């Protein structure tokens, strides 16, 4: 039989993405593309009030709408014990409201109908009577004595959800008191939303004949959904199949389980039909997981020469009506205590107070490894505030304080051990490429002419790859991830994973990892994810964890295959196993490398000619529990010019020099960086979900919640350094989130730098024209 020779090494090649032809040609199969026989549609009735008592729900007008089959309310669910559900963060959340509503757009009732249009008409016809209650919008007033108590269902009669601390408060206070220079700054990271192109949705299909429930759902973590469903709906887990088809972007919004999914399951059980529910954009922006909303106060103590000594951070976290953020269970503020960043602090202390408000729940999403974005933004902003206080170039301040390369692995005062890093090398490469010194000279000249030009640096450190099982779990499920590889007789392979990509390119990069470990071309490795019936168990794709965790599983699973194949190779080469070496993608006889067999030879033999005593076949499964997180880092530099008449900021240049360890596919890394930078740009300049004093959402569609187009988006310049992770099987670190994490501070630092001659030290995002204009006006700048 004809067997292809193995190709050149596939790791590190800029292979075109295997998934792109189907996506680019509109041939992806997304949730809303799936139409099952007899399928019904569901639409949700949502609260127009942010806080109100539910007086009465009249289903009759909806039931009179042609095509409407059922109306489900919270009281109906209460009969099944399903009106509340547990959240991943250890709180509980209403499925359909009973008693009262706690945010605008909260789910109040569901209408099931024969067509989507009838379901909408039905939802509009349901009559709900509300009795408005006092609304709590501003987190800063959540703990005031007179504040309305939002969650009267809880034992603790307070709007405080929890208080969390990290670090040594006494040592930090002492170091701060002794510091020659201290700076203090309030920094707000606004509430924003990832809002992927595809909104959330599901089809619940309870097959009465088999008793089996299939849930097609837009999920980044299908296995978690299966287990949560088994727990919430009390269905036997083997009778549930969760299928996450092609996902049109997730960014963390598709990790949590939403009320609509639970109601759709109930609706399918009740009607005996498959039930589809797909959000509108307004429902998506108004009710699914928001991001950030951290009110932070930061203090740094330093010497006059600019050596940082102590960092103290207090944060007020606005979680909305329920604590349903998708964080590892024992980490209520996620990985926020990575906020010492790339710098060598002797002492640090962080505390976070989380509060309820009358806003939708969420908190952890938008391309962010569990609050690392807030942390990175804070420290990079604070370093610039310190530089301004010291009248020092922010680049020089960073140089003075980087954790030196020889101190890795480095343990921070807040307890993280960074795996590897070479910050100075990465930093100097970036500053050299952008021509930092020339830019500063140009800035001096422009300032002399009254022009507003700014240069902003972010030299961030990320923490990704949750996470080591000793500390990281979600509802007790350890945060390992898995791979299963089957090598077929013809030497082609099927590789399945517990993660679920949403645009990251796993079908290509994981094929490259497996291919390089097995000596197979990436084209010969088919990657499959998203079906809990076929994929091995895993916690899903978010927090940049796929490459650090599932990518590790891919390599180690392939090596397990190689171990077995080696026995087969020895059999084929008629030598002892210890005489066989794996070199240049083949098994070779030690000392006689021209005597060699390929993986394809071994695969064929595994099914046709296995060595006596060896189990036939060539398959393996691997569950990888990472020993540590990985810590990608980078230097981003933004150059901006401000129009003093309109307040418009023009991003003249933006350079990103990332270090994500060993690169699997440089083109995909660049693509991830481009996408994340565009999001970071949007967050810095235009995105926020504000609420008025009545709790009305003021950005519930794309007219108000702005997503940049190619026209606004700056040109991105990218480059890299490579510092492998010492513990990851192939030295990779994960890269998906770095650009969103690292870029907002670069933009804001650049804008503040441009405004610094006026005495400006900080401006909160989003940096809209109007906000800049107001700063200019306050400082007496009027221009035409």
């Amino acid at each position, binding site marked *: 039989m004809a067997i292809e020779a193995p190709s050149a090494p596939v790791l590190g090649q800029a292979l075109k993405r295997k998934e792109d032809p189907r996506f680019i040609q509109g041939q992806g199969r997304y949730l809303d593309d799936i139409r099952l026989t007899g399928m019904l549609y569901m639409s949700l009735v949502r609260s127009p009030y942010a806080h109100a008592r539910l007086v009465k729900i009249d289903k009759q007008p909806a039931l009179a709408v042609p095509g409407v089959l059922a109306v489900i309310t919270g009281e109906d669910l209460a009969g099944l014990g399903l009106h509340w559900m547990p959240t991943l963060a250890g709180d509980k959340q209403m499925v359909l409201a009973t008693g009262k509503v706690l945010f605008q757009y909260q789910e109040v009732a569901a209408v099931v109908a024969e067509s*989507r249009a009838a379901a909408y008409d039905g939802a509009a016809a349901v009559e709900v009577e509300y009795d408005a209650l006092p609304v709590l919008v501003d987190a800063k007033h959540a703990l005031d004595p007179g504040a309305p108590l939002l969650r009267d269902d809880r034992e603790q009669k307070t709007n405080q959800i929890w208080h969390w601390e990290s670090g040594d408060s006494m040592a930090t206070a002492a170091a701060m008191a002794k510091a020659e220079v201290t700076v203090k700054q309030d920094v707000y990271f606004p509430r924003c939303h990832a809002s992927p192109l595809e909104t959330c949705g599901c089809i619940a299909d309870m097959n009465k004949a088999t008793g089996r429930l299939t849930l097609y759902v837009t999920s980044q973590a299908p296995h978690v959904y299966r287990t949560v469903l088994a727990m919430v709906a009390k269905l036997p887990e083997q009778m549930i199949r969760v299928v996450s088809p092609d996902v049109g972007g997730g960014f963390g919004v598709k990790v949590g389980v939403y009320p609509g999914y639970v109601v759709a399951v109930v609706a399918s059980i009740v009607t005996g039909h498959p039930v589809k529910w797909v959000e509108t954009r307004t429902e998506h922006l108004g009710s699914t997981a928001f991001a950030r909303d951290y009110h932070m106060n930061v203090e740094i103590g330093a010497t006059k020469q600019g050596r940082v000594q102590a960092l103290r951070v207090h944060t007020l976290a606005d979680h909305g009506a329920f604590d349903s953020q998708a964080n590892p269970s024992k980490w209520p503020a996620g990985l926020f205590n990575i906020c010492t960043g790339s710098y060598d602090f002797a002492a640090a202390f962080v505390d976070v107070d989380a509060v309820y408000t009358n806003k939708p729940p969420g908190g952890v999403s938008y391309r962010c490894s569990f609050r690392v974005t807030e942390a990175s933004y804070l420290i990079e902003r604070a370093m610039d505030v310190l530089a301004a206080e010291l009248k020092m170039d922010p680049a020089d301040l960073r140089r003075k304080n980087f954790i030196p390369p020889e101190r890795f692995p480095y343990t921070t005062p807040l307890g993280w051990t960074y795996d590897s890093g070479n910050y100075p090398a990465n930093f100097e490469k970036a500053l050299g490429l952008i021509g930092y010194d020339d830019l500063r000279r140009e800035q001096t000249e422009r300032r002399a002419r009254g022009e507003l030009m700014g240069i902003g640096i972010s030299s961030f450190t990320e923490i990704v790859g949750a996470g080591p099982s000793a500390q990281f779990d979600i509802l007790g499920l350890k945060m390992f991830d898995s791979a299963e590889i089957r090598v077929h007789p013809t030497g082609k392979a099927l590789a399945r994973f517990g993660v679920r990509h949403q645009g990251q390119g796993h079908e290509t990069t994981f094929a490259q990892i497996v291919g390089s470990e097995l000596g197979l071309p990436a084209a010969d490795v088919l990657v499959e994810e998203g079906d809990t019936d076929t994929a091995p168990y895993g916690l899903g794709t978010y927090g940049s964890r796929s490459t650090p965790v599932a990518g590790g599983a891919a390599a180690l699973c392939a090596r397990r295959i190689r171990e077995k194949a080696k026995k087969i190779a020895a059999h084929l080469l008629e030598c002892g196993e210890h005489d066989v070496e794996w070199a240049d993608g083949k098994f070779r006889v030690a000392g006689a490398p021209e005597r060699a067999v390929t993986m394809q030879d071994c695969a064929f033999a595994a099914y046709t000619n296995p060595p006596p005593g060896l189990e036939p076949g060539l398959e393996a499964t691997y569950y990888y529990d990472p020993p540590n997180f990985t810590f990608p880092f980078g230097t981003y530099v933004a150059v901006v010019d401000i129009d003093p008449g309109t307040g418009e900021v023009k991003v003249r240049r933006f350079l990103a020099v990332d270090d994500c360890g060993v690169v699997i596919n440089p083109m995909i890394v660049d693509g991830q960086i481009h996408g994340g930078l565009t999001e970071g740009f949007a967050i810095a300049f*235009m995105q926020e979900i504000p609420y008025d004093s009545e709790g009305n959402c003021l950005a519930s569609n794309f007219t108000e919640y702005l997503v*940049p*187009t190619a026209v*606004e988006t700056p040109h991105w310049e990218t480059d890299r350094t490579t510092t492998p992770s010492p513990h990851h099987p192939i030295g990779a670190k994960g890269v998906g989130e770095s650009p969103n994490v690292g870029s907002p501070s670069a933009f804001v630092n650049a804008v503040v730098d441009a405004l610094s001659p006026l005495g400006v030290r900080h401006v909160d995002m989003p940096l*809209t*024209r109007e906000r800049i*204009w*107001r700063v200019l006006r306050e400082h007496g700048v009027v221009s*035409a």
Partner: protein
Amino acid sequence: MIPAAFEYAAPKTVAEAIALLRGADSGGKILAGGQSLVPMMRFRLAAPNLLIDITRIPELRIFKEESGYLRIGAMVTHGELERSAMVGERYPLLASTARVVADPIVRERGTICGSLVHADPAGDWGAALIAARAQAVVTGPAGERTMPLDDFLVDTFTTALGEDEILTEVRVPTPPALSGGNYQKIERKVGDFATAAVGVQLTLSEQGAVEAVGIGLCAAGPVSLRATAAEGMLIGKVLDDASITAAAAAAATQAEPTADTRGAIDYKRDMVRVLTSRALHAARAAIRA
């Protein structure tokens, strides 16, 4: 996000379309590019019984210079105008407006006349064509009538159009020698309506004095606004930094913007000042020797 049920008709002539409008007894709506109407229907802010699609009426595609006017038929899209070399050469105000209306996808479907009938004070064509002193040509059962655009645009989402009338055409005077024009717009992103925008059409005398000037303000009141005070101040003056600054200030004073997520009143008012000044400078620069 799903419109209410409706009927659909696609007439081939203006007369047929008018007959359909009459027959629908106020329940009919003209469908041109659908770029304002369809979103309204999806939000159920509009729920017509009958949609009368005018995209297949050849006579509404007229787009040419004739007897001192540029005739822009009802089915001329923003994109068509944007790509026209003749407009690029002789109507710099229109060319610079077409480039900033909505986004390229919307521009390929949306029409200038549809935008005028929609009469959104934040629509760009109202301000630009007021500056250009355009005429609206309206056709109904009794025939055709023509009026200055200032009279056609009555109030927010309200025009002088009768229930069974169609805006068949808008006519823009062909600028004489020593004319220039420009449109300046601030938007939060491409595809956004203006935070503020200003259109200027300018004609200078041989001596360099302002002979004629039109200034239209977008998103600066309940309807597209003519900056009459600023226009009056400029007539007969030499267009220099001082007169431009004074006119810009007058335009800002006349503006009555409302506060929304695009900005507070003081910001929007100041943007009228900044953009009027920039549009006047740019209009002067667009005058060809």
